[in-house]
């Protein structure tokens, strides 16, 4: 599909490539990164993205702390994570170069906006001389683009102010990249029209600059190489490049359609979960009720109220918010109402590092409430898998009349990948406990098999009933402090969650099933671990691999499957929470390997762990 070029260029074929965009947090890095990712998606690539940005909206210009990054890996089916090393680094200023040079290997390409390599900016980044000129980047191929000058030339007759003109420079760099990788530029042009439709002058300027960047690369001798990246092995169908946060929202809407009820999403803004609220807000309707609450507690409480009145109800949050929601989660547990809670994990404790990823909310999710307060905990493994996991959470919540927490993480919630859009008929059906006739109804009557109580809600005539946080009598549902009754109800609540095991598919073992060693991860480490396990096995380092989705209850077959291995290595982005859970449940020896840097595990790091543990087996 290479577009005609009028000059002779070297074309390099590659299975995949990793591009890292970096600049000031006001440079529109996340925006061009996302556009680039969408273009690779439309070109038919597999892809995986990693936004890496500071918490400040506009950190001091040119400072090291203000550097915002966005990494895209794209190529064939071997792309399972955003990668840890970049082939291409696009930098908008010296600070971006300084912070990101460590991601490059010898021979990688630096595309730099040289206009911003001013003495002042160089000083802020701690450079004594200009690295674009002093030879210090001789291990890399450096392409210097005087983007500020070039956009000023491009837009000089448009009547825009200098500051308006300079804001377009990120699109110039994007245009250059589109030429290098021969990606479909029209998609971004269309997106610009939509984004700036209220300001056609700005839209035209950005588009002009985008094409100018492309043409600049085409017409400048410095650009003498193009890259042809292999396409993914994606099955036929309609796709969308989805982030985990978007996918979580779409799953709840799809679930409400399947269930035939309104969906209610109550939430309070919190990084990195806010995009679920944004996505929902754009889709508000009489059947998609979105409530921005005054605080985290009100958000979950309103959602519990909506569940009581018959909605498919949900809330989303991140660590500090989950802490605030714990008391209300207990209310949902004792009320036995369906509720989906999406927790986008970030680095903790307390405010921690709000924009950075971690997997450290397992304990609070599974155990973080007073009393014996069981609920279902699931984990999503990738951006697109957030859809299927949140959909599954909705199904289990309704079927078992229980709150379900879905653990995603900043990494997959804000990263993206191709998502094949399912039709409604491809999605699992919902099962609801049969409601008896009104004269036979009691709020805490239970299905003898599943222990599930029926879901009656106002204004169903004849089903008026009272529930609440006080312990209730079995069946009748009146307030009760009777000792035996509390035992019965506690046993039922725990027993009911245990019954979810019958709904859990058999534990899948990847890699070399017959190896002596198994590496176990959960949720969002899936991509990096899968790539590492494939690499390890290809080198003769025999390793089996389990990625856990069902964290509470644990799958019924998990203990037996783990016990088959001589060595069990649990790898997670916390200080050993899952290792603790598995030791406690199965009394097995476990090697716990962890990382809490706010960055997701990379394939290389996992591979190193596998090699070390294999050597020491």
């Amino acid at each position, binding site marked *: 599909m290479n577009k005609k070029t009028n000059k002779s260029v070297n074309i390099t074929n590659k299975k995949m490539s990793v591009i890292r965009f970096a600049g000031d947090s006001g440079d529109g890095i996340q925006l061009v990164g996302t556009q680039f990712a969408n273009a690779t998606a439309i070109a038919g690539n597999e892809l995986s993205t990693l936004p890496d940005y500071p918490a400040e909206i506009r950190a001091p210009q040119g400072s090291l702390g203000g550097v915002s990054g966005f990494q895209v890996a794209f190529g064939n089916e071997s792309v399972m994570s955003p990668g840890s090393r970049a082939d291409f680094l696009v930098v908008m200023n010296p600070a971006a170069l300084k912070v990101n040079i460590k991601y490059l290997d010898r021979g990688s390409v630096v595309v730099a906006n040289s206009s911003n390599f001013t003495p002042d900016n160089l000083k802020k980044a701690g450079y004594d001389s200009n690295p674009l000129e002093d030879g210090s980047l001789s291990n890399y191929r450096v392409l210097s683009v005087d983007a500020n000058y070039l956009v000023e030339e491009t837009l000089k007759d448009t009547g825009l102010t200098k500051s308006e003109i300079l804001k377009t420079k990120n699109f110039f760099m994007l245009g250059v990249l589109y030429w290098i990788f021969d990606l479909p530029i029209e998609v971004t042009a269309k997106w610009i029209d939509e984004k700036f439709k209220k300001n056609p002058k700005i839209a035209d300027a950005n588009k002009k600059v985008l094409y100018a960047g492309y043409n600049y690369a085409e017409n400048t001798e410095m650009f003498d190489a193009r890259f042809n990246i292999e396409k993914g092995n994606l099955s036929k169908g309609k*796709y969308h490049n989805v982030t985990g946060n978007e996918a979580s929202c779409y799953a709840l809407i799809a679930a409400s359609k399947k269930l035939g009820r309104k969906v209610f999403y109550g939430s309070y803004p919190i990084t990195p979960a806010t995009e679920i609220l944004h996505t929902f807000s754009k889709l508000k309707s*009489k059947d998609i*009720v979105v*409530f921005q609450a005054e605080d985290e507690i009100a958000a979950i409480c309103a959602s519990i109220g909506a569940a009581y009145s018959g909605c498919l109800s949900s809330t989303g949050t991140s660590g500090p918010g989950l802490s605030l929601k714990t008391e209300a989660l207990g209310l949902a547990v004792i*009320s036995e109402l369906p509720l989906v809670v999406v927790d986008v994990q970030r680095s903790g404790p307390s405010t921690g590092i709000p924009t950075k990823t971690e997997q450290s909310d397992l304990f609070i999710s599974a155990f973080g409430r007073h009393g014996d307060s069981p609920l279902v905990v699931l984990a999503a493994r990738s951006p697109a898998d957030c859809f299927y996991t949140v959909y599954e959470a909705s199904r289990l919540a309704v079927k078992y009349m229980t709150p379900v927490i879905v653990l995603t993480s900043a990494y997959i919630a804000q990263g993206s990948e191709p998502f094949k859009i399912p*039709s409604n008929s491809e999605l699992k059906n919902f099962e609801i406990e049969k409601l008896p006739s009104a004269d036979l109804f009691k709020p805490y009557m239970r299905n003898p098999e599943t222990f599930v109580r029926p879901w009656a809600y106002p204004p169903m005539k004849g089903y008026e009933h009272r*529930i609440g946080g006080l312990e209730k009598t079995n069946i009748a549902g009146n307030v009760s402090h009777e000792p035996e009754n509390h035992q019965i109800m506690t046993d039922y609540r725990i027993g009911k969650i245990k019954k979810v095991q019958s709904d859990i598919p058999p534990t899948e073992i990847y890699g070399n099933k017959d190896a002596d060693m198994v590496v176990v991860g959960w949720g969002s480490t899936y991509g990096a671990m899968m790539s590492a396990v494939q690499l390890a096995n290809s080198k003769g380092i025999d390793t089996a691999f389990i990625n856990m989705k069902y964290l509470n209850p644990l799958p019924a077959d998990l203990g037996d499957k783990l016990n088959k291995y001589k060595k069990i290595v649990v790898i997670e982005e916390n200080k050993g929470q899952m290792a603790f859970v598995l030791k406690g449940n199965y009394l097995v020896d476990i090697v716990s390997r962890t990382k809490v840097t706010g960055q997701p595990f990379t394939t290389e790091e996992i591979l190193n762990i596998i090699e070390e543990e294999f050597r020491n087996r």
Partner: protein
Amino acid sequence: MTKLTPNDFSSNLPIKWCPGCGDYAILNSVKKSMAELGIDHEKYVVVSGIGCSSRFPYYVNTYGYHTIHGRAIPVATGIKLSNPDLMVFVVTGDGDCLSIGGNHFIHGIRRNIGLKVLMFNNRIYALTKGQASPTTLPGAKTKTTPYGSTDYPFNPMLFAVGMRAPFVARSIDTDINGTSSIITEAAKNEGFAFVEILQKCVVFTDKEFDVFKNPETKDDMIVRIEDKKPMIFGKNRNKAIVVENNTPKIVEFDPSIVPSNLTIYDSSDVNLAYIISSLMPPEFPLPLGIFLRFAKTSYENLFYNSVKDVATPSSVEEILKESTYEIK
């Protein structure tokens, strides 16, 4: 449909309040209003937080949810917003509503969600056996204030009026007819309604409101606020509150010749409501009645109106129809 009576709303469960508690009378007032409103049982939802008052939902045979401390308003908000056809009452107390639930009280009024909030004010944490609450008066001795309370109390009426809740009223537990008629009016007014009901705690604040009930003192200690009427009070009906230049004062007169220039109450006048809300014994009699009532579109109606022309997508494919690409 046959006309419902207050008894039709009894759940017939044993009531766990102390004998002599003011809550019994309020329960009767609410059941009377429920019958008068002519709304079917299944359309009522009574939501409560934690405290003595919050046992309330168990004693009416409608839908009910006894939630957690301070959170009745947000739970009820979810119920009302997801189904605006329901008549949702919130039963709460001074500690539940003003202390632990204070933030939700603020934002419930700010949004104007259509909840009918009945706040039973006994000026004490009674269920936990007698600690000072946000409405405990200065100097009052409680288990946590053995030398007398040094906290400034919360005036919820002043707050609700200041936040422009479209219905703000105060009544007293023993006045079943007065309380019931206020609750009925609260239910009929669109949006958030706040009704403070002074309620004696027979154990900890037994004498708290006696001056407002004792036939010897009550007429001088209470002024009943009624629309289009002067604010006359006193055993001999010889006193009135008048407001001049935004300043309230008491005037006395010969009851056989009521002055024609007395201030006439108008519940749609926010400034007047604000002034009346600030009146407290001993300088002034305690005002009871509907302080503020005006038309204000509710949160739920604003929400559903804002999306009335928005179609709900039938599938994920439809949501994403503008941003999909095809692999062939």
